[in-house]
């Protein structure tokens, strides 16, 4: 089939515009991608540092909660002692 010259020109213009807009959206998407990627990396870095902190807190906790430490504090600071057998009274239910 044959198009008139006007129709051909119109077609040409539409196609050119479509190509152009597609090209721009490619660039834009690429840009968005970069922006999001940078954000992702930032969040990953945060996660990383939180992980480090968590590990260090775990270590800190287990250092403070070490049985030897608790025992020392209970004995020295709180004057606690293990009840002797004759100090224990058992309650019959």
């Amino acid at each position, binding site marked *: 089939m044959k198009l008139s010259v006007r129709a051909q020109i119109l077609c040409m213009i539409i196609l050119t515009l479509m190509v152009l807009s597609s090209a721009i959206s490619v660039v834009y998407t690429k840009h968005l991608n970069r922006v999001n990627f940078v954000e992702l990396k930032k969040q990953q870095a945060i996660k990383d540092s939180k992980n480090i902190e968590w590990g260090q807190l775990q270590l800190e906790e287990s250092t403070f909660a070490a049985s030897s430490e608790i025992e020392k504090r209970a004995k020295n600071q709180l004057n606690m002692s293990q009840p002797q057998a004759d100090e*224990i*009274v*058992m309650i019959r239910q």
Partner: protein
Amino acid sequence: MKKAKKPAKEIAIKAKFSDASASVVAGKQISSWRYFLLVFSMLAVAVFLSYRALDIQVLDNDFLQNQGQARHLRTISLPAHRGMLLDRNGEVLALSSPVVSVWANPAAVPLEDDSLKPLAELIGKPLKGLKQQISQMKTKNKEFVYLKRRLNPSLEAQVKALDIPGILTLREFKRYYPAAEVTAHVVGLNNIDEQGIEGFELQANDRLQGRPGKDRVLQDRRLVVVDSVDLLEAPHPGQDLTLSIDKRLQYIAYRELQKVVKLHNAKSATLVLLDARSGEVLALANAPSFNPNNLSNLDPEHLRNRAMTDLIEPGSTIKPFIVATGLETKQVSNSMPVNTSPGYMRVGDATIKDIKDFGELDLTTILQKSSNVGITKVAMNIPREVLWEKLSDMGFGESTKSGFPGEVVGYLPFFGEWNRVAQATLSYGYGISVTPLQLAQAYAVFANGGLLTPVTLTKNNGIVRGKRVLSTEVSQQVLAMLETVVSREGTAWQARVPGYRVAGKTGTVKKAINGGYAEKDYLALFAGIAPASDPRLVAVVVVDEPSNKQYYGGTVAAPVFANVMSEALRLLNIAPDDINSDNVRLAAAPAIEVIQ
């Protein structure tokens, strides 16, 4: 040249428009060969240029693209951390935490000026030594040299801020052991590259180990990653592993062992505490131990996990198994009197002695007094193949199948090699060897109604399949006999735990030295079960070479058992079963009105 060409071009164009073959224009004469040469060379250039354009754009575009990418595409490694080791209650026993290592590319580092000075201060190394190290590696053409490994991760930003060329940082992991020497022998060790070399770190290395991932990324000119092109391999962090160890019980065990080593000036001491029903190891400790966080002054001798790698002769602690075999095979009965007078007997050319003349004993009192003569007479009544088979059944000479690296298998000589003397000495625990762990496993048979359960160092949630090696009746009979050992009349009065009924057996073993037995070096042993009415825990204590006068299992090892057991029973909330004895005070539960 250009100016000369231009008129020629005009001429050529004009020539085209007039007559293709004309060589005479505006009265000027140009020779035809020059004209053709010109046209030809111009065409050739045009063809070459368009081919080159096609070549670059279409045919060989991979090459250029690769070249371009090579300048900003990098494959980076995504670190994966090693799994944690946890105790049965989820307490951390080993944990990998990120640290930072500083490295240099020697060729790029400026060595002439003082730009390295702040770095030297930051990583705590003398500037001179640092420069020397880098320049040495420079002459060797090395591209990578560690300056300092495993620094606090907060230093990473500071090192980066210095912005010295050729100085870079690397993220690594360091293993921390919060319980340090208390759990050192079970948990084990890693080398500097995070590979297990001892204990559980070695046994479960494949499981704990993470697999680092690979990512292809785009970097800009400041080496900042701007895009991920292709995730080649996702990182796989290592799996966590829950051990059967209870950190609290482990601490108590270690503390008591340290005390006994000091008190009796012993070479070492070992304790194994088992859950009788599940076969799980709740505590396994050795003293002296080592600090896995700081190996700088490590005595390699302390690395040894004696509970699993030291073979000991069980001595008197084997006697209950001889009695059980006799009862099980109906070769003896408890009512059978055994005359042990005059306190010694001869078998072949060996003399077997008791500490004194016990006179007439039965099976219970043989165990209670730990009479060597009595048990020898019992053992001599049992055919040797029967004795061998039953002892093998109860795990002697067999592996515990715990799978722990370096664990040794006990030794029980084949009955074909036994003579009468061997059978006699075996009955009181010489000429046979076990590890403390294996001895605990064997005692668990009495605690478990005759079932031999595999021992495990990982939490098994109580799912076990035991193997019946003794009938329930015989196992209970022996348990009742062992209860009489922990009495004023028995050898292990010091193993008693207030509020609980305890069964157990002492052992005092002369240490084997090349070709004979030492005169004054002893092992003090105690193996016990509590509470006797419904056994939950089994423990074995071994004290190596106590040398402060006392060396009997009943006076050296039994108190350790009592101390550990009383706290373990309390911590595990196991109800007292001996509430009617003299040393327990009872009160009626208060009436409800009082509470309100």
